[in-house]
């Protein structure tokens, strides 16, 4: 039944927006970057699409939870969404040694948790030691701490983190909420309790209360003075309160923004964007870094084992057509398996240009002859591929159908098969698909290794070889330039050998009301309210 609601959401929103479009002029164009002098005080209301399932940033990975807890918990470092560079936050400096096996952080002086206890080297060590024990409860954190040996509190402000094997992505991990630093009182609690009652952090806001499924209210922490290097101001937040409302229906979120009942609303569909802009509502769009929406190719299957078939698919897909017809040009055609904002991204747009004629020639050359029903045949075998996609990608279904049509033109039949997300692990294990849809936001290129490595779920059934070497190589390289070269090599192999068919870069669309200023976005386009104020 909730599914039905959501399905209507998109349709009804479009209908209703069309119906009451011209008259409404609730919002004025406002810049999220802020205009005028920040004004302290007031309360900002943000409408989120789902309830935070767990109020502990170290355990939960949902976008909503991260947004809600980001305001409560600081991290050792921050990441500049424009450059991907890691910059100081709780740590004022750090160095990586012995081939990304040892990281030493120097902490800022005088930082305290909201319960008054000091955030010192011992606190950081305790956090990492505890995180490792959380295991599968903290999936994200576990990947960043892969190979963790121990932490040493050298002195009150210096902490050294040691790994058994090189772990270059760890530094990026320290900028995420997954490795956000929580107080001793929180660490002492059982994991399930932390989810329910929230955590003690050192952030610019503290939790006021949480009404499940309805709202999370946070209030300013006075005396905060250690904003990240990215924050225009370091001191206490301007807002008295931030209220996160849980509003599952997109059309209702839009309505709240229009009528001024909400100041910031998240996760709008690209189809609605042009209309909302026309009404004068300010929209912020951000492409999250990480893996773009791609069809990953299972090379262990007889048909897709043929490189000619894979390369033909790569050429037959018209990415521009997908974004212009379906996503109002808010999304962008993929130019690599990585989104443009990911550090180490390489532009392979030339390899990903639509070329159906070229695709046909490739298939002809490989001996695939067009059969009576328009589908190519070779040695009595039809070129018919199974494309599996998880139920969580419902919003992408029309794009898959368009790809299906585009491939049909060159004589490749595609059968779309939807799989409940609860069966995802099983689907990867069984591997009974030729193509599988996936995307994975992450602001570190190591996401390539996590997704494609032969030692993981191995969606593409990578046999090892140069791609695996490049994937492992980048994770062991602490020199930024050398690491980028490995990342570039991996992207090139994935695209040219067509292990992955990148489709498009998604976008997070956030509506910002006229009252709201100074809302910042992190690299995954999630909201930060430390500098926000209302007029």
């Amino acid at each position: 039944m909730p599914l039905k609601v959501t399905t209507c959401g998109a349709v009804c929103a479009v209908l209703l927006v069309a119906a009451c479009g011209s008259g409404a002029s609730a919002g004025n164009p406002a810049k999220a970057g802020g205009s005028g002098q920040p004004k302290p005080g007031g309360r900002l209301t943000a409408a989120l699409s789902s309830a935070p399932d767990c109020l502990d940033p170290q355990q939960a990975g949902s976008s909503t939870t991260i947004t809600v807890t980001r305001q409560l918990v600081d991290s050792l470092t921050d990441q500049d969404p424009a450059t991907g560079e890691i910059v100081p936050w709780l740590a004022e400096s750090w160095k990586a040694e012995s081939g990304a096996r040892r990281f030493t952080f120097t902490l800022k002086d005088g930082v305290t948790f909201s319960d008054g206890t000091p955030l010192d080297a011992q606190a950081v060590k305790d956090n990492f030691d505890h995180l490792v024990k959380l295991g599968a409860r903290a999936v994200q954190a576990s990947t960043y701490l892969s190979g963790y040996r121990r932490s040493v509190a050298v002195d009150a402000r210096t902490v050294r983190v040691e790994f058994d094997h090189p772990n270059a992505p760890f530094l990026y991990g320290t900028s995420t909420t997954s490795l956000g630093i929580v107080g001793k009182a929180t660490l002492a609690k059982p994991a399930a309790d932390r989810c329910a009652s929230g955590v003690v952090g050192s952030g610019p806001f503290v939790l006021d209360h949480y009404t499940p499924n309805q709202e999370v209210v946070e209030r300013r922490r006075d005396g905060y003075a250690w904003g990240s290097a990215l924050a225009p101001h370091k001191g206490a937040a301007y807002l008295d309160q931030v209220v996160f409302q849980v509003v599952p229906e997109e059309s209702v979120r839009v309505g709240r923004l229009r009528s001024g009942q909400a100041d910031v609303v998240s996760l709008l569909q690209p189809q609605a964007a042009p209309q909302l802009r026309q009404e004068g509502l300010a929209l912020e769009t951000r492409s999250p870094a990480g893996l773009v929406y791609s069809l990953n190719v299972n090379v262990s299957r007889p048909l897709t084992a043929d490189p000619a078939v894979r390369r033909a698919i790569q050429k037959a897909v018209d990415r521009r057509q997908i974004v212009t017809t379906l996503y109002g040009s808010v999304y962008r055609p993929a130019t690599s398996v990585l989104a443009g904002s990911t550090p180490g991204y390489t532009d392979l747009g030339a390899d990903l240009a639509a070329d159906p004629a070229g695709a046909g020639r490739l298939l002809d050359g490989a001996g695939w002859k067009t059969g009576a029903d328009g589908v190519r045949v070779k040695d009595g075998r039809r070129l018919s591929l199974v494309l599996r996609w998880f139920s969580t990608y419902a919003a992408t279904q029309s794009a898959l159908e368009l790809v299906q049509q585009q491939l049909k033109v060159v004589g490749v039949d595609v059968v779309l098969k939807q799989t409940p997300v609860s069966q995802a692990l099983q689907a990867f294990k069984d591997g009974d698909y030729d193509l599988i849809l996936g995307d994975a936001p992450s602001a570190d290129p190591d996401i390539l290794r996590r997704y494609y490595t032969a030692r993981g779920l191995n969606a593409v059934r990578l046999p090892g070889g140069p791609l695996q070497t490049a994937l492992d190589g980048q994770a062991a390289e602490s020199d930024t330039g050398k690491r980028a070269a490995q990342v570039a090599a991996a992207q090139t192999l994935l695209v040219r050998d067509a292990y992955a068919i990148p489709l498009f870069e998604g976008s997070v669309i956030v509506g910002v009301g006229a009252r709201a200023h100074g809302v910042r976005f992190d690299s995954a386009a999630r909201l930060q309210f430390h500098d926000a104020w209302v007029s």
Partner: protein
Amino acid sequence: MTRRDMARYLARRLAQAALVLWAAFTLSFIVLYLLPGDPIEIMTGGGASGDAVDPAQIAALRHEYGFDRPLAVQYLDRLAAALHGDFGRSVTSGVPVLGLIRTGLPATLTLTGLAVALAVPAGAGLALLATYTRTPRLRRLLLSLPSLGVALPTFWVGLVLLQVVSFRLRLLPSAGDAGPAAQVLPAVTLAVPAAAALAQVLARGLDNVLRDPYVETAHAKGAGRLRVHLRHVAPNAVIPALTLLGLVIGELMTNAVVVETVFSRDGLGRITATAVGAEDIPVVQGVVVVSAVVIVLVNLLVDLAYPLLDPRIVLGGRAS
């Protein structure tokens, strides 16, 4: 009916209720276990993000929650705990299930209560007016309204009300937490199909009774049309509608899933929707049992009300 008969009747009903609750508990357990995947896989992301979670760590979590024990042991364990009023903790949020239900139940009960309070007079009024009027066109119009009300999808009604009343006219808030004013739109949305169903059944009942000979007798004795309609016809036509009311309350709790989602309210419906999506077995079972208790109670009250309306009805089906 003597007091002893009454006691015997109630005892039998309570035994039936216990059976219903046990069946609800058992069925929800079976269905949730038949679903593919398990709550731990869903909790750890199910691999959809491409991250391989260490199988040993997943096994450890499964062990912690007891999902690795034989099914029969898990079932009996849960049943024994449930008999002591303990449904365990939510797998996703770690909150005790009863605490979760205690926060959601009042909101849903208030909402359904308001919806019934709106639906009964609206449905009854519509049915009475439709059967009373002598203008055929008005009668046809009034009688077609209930079918429309039943046919309109609840989420659509809710969205339209929100767009028009809250966002365009700005008469009422759309938020779930803005006090009594925020209750109006969801209650109206929920009341529409309920009122329509009641009106349909009541109108048909009234039509049937109007053809009974005693109505003519009443007219012949000189009673006014309105008086005959309200005093003589309505009480005899109300029994099927009352039976329906018991069912409608169950349906209202189902529709609450949709209404609470559209209106961004907390409540049993939202808790259910979230828990089913995450295959959060303890929560779903808790909600199912609590909902069953509510529905059993409502139907018992409805049955107890029959003799008050029609003295010919004897509880327990036997004349005393």
